[in-house]
């Protein structure tokens, strides 16, 4: 690997830079799917990188670090939602596309509809859906990331897919 230390491993600073380069944007987008707004998502992901830095000596490997980042981003996103209190009363600022001539208003509206629909799902369903369809994680990886059984992943996935199906019929 690049920028390795004497023993061929990254130090914590290098690990943060490397992981940032490869995964920051995707993790922020993942968190946007969970919390609904970019500013909160950035905060969640930055906190997660700081946490990863502190644990690098235990993680040591990029794969483990990525798994840790994912888990931390999901947990912190959920924590943030809880801090907002009654979620149904909180309307996060819309994830506004930069207004541009090429941006179809209908497309922007559809994107917001998807985020709104996700926000109405129970926490676990939303998380399973985001990890499955955005990050393409396997059922086993989702189970590990969320600390739940594979059976639970399956049932959350099917319920969430059923709920979102209704939405898709409206927008697709």
């Amino acid at each position: 690997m690049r920028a390795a230390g004497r023993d061929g491993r990254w130090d914590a600073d290098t690990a943060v830079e490397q992981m940032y380069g490869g995964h920051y944007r995707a993790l922020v987008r993942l968190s946007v799917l969970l919390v609904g707004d970019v500013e909160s998502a950035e905060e969640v992901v930055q906190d997660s990188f700081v946490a990863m830095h502190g644990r690098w000596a235990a993680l040591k490997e990029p794969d483990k670090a990525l798994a840790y980042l994912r888990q931390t981003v999901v947990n912190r996103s959920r924590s943030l939602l809880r801090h907002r209190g009654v979620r149904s009363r909180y309307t996060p600022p819309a994830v506004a596309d930069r207004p541009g001539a090429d941006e179809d208003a209908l497309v922007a509206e559809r994107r917001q509809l998807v985020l709104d629909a996700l926000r109405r799902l129970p926490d676990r369903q939303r998380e399973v859906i985001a990890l499955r369809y955005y990050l393409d994680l396997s059922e086993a990886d989702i189970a590990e990331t969320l600390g739940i059984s594979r059976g639970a992943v399956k049932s959350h996935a099917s319920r969430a897919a059923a709920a979102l199906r209704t939405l898709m019929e409206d927008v697709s």
Partner: protein
Amino acid sequence: MNRADDRDDKLDGKLDGKLDAELRDLLRDAVSRVEPRHGIDAIRSRTAAPRARRSWAWAAGGAVAATAATIAAVSLLSTGLGTSNDVRPAPEPTGATPLRTVSVYFVGDTGGGTRLFSEQRRVFAPVALQEALADAVQGVTFDPDYTSPWPSGEMLRGARMRQGVIAINLDARAATRPQGMSLGTAKAAVQQLVLTAQSATRHRYPVRFLLDGRPTATVLGLRVGHEVTGRRDDSVLAAVSIRSPAQDATVGSPFTVTGQAATFEANVQWELTQGDTVVRRGFTTARECCTLSPYSFKVSAPPGVYTLVVHDEDASGGEGVGRSVDTKSITVR
């Protein structure tokens, strides 16, 4: 709805390719225009702590420890509040992100003085010791009745397990007992870290305390000697405590309450209350009398938000609860 439900068994990657593909497209598209601001500088400025704090050996200090605490806290909430599918603890994962269920101890008031109560949480296994101790020292509790006896979350500098000994490194200020801390609380504080560390490492190894990396014979003004062993009797642990449900848990009905108690004739009394109203009450007995032993009972209640109160017998024979009590806020769905 039903059509999707019928496909439960095929959800692992193979289901209805069309539905999968559509969901994938929709989700990706929903965030496709999200371009985060450049965040690396903000991250770097926070990870560029003083060099001394960086070494792995004592990597639990400062902001990083606070982060750990939050993650750990969230892990428990997620097991405590999930749907019925989640309530059963998942098997210990064996892959890249092993989670470990640990007991973190806190102090609480009982009729007998300051005693320890524990809360379960799932933490990232490679750093379970550091995360559990950080929560303990910083008082990251779910139950508002519990707290940390330590004067500051900064007191913990780090911890590690090596060759049959758990070493806990504290700030040098931890040598003396802060003004206003009782002897009993100091003793509880030391045992709090010992029991938490033993749970986190899954080894009942003795604990050696260090101050700023150097051996010490004194912690919080107590002589701790070379090593401290964990004590699990009712001189240290609360005489009555609830293990599950956890604080703020959502449960079905009926639900099972478990915990441990050391009470006269093993009697354990309980109430389920809403405000001043007692909705249900009952009693049970712990497995053994007069020493800490497990109890368990079932409660049925209509949906609602309740306070579960478990306590020993009211020795006064009059009003109010007994000398040792634990409470949890729970939701029955």
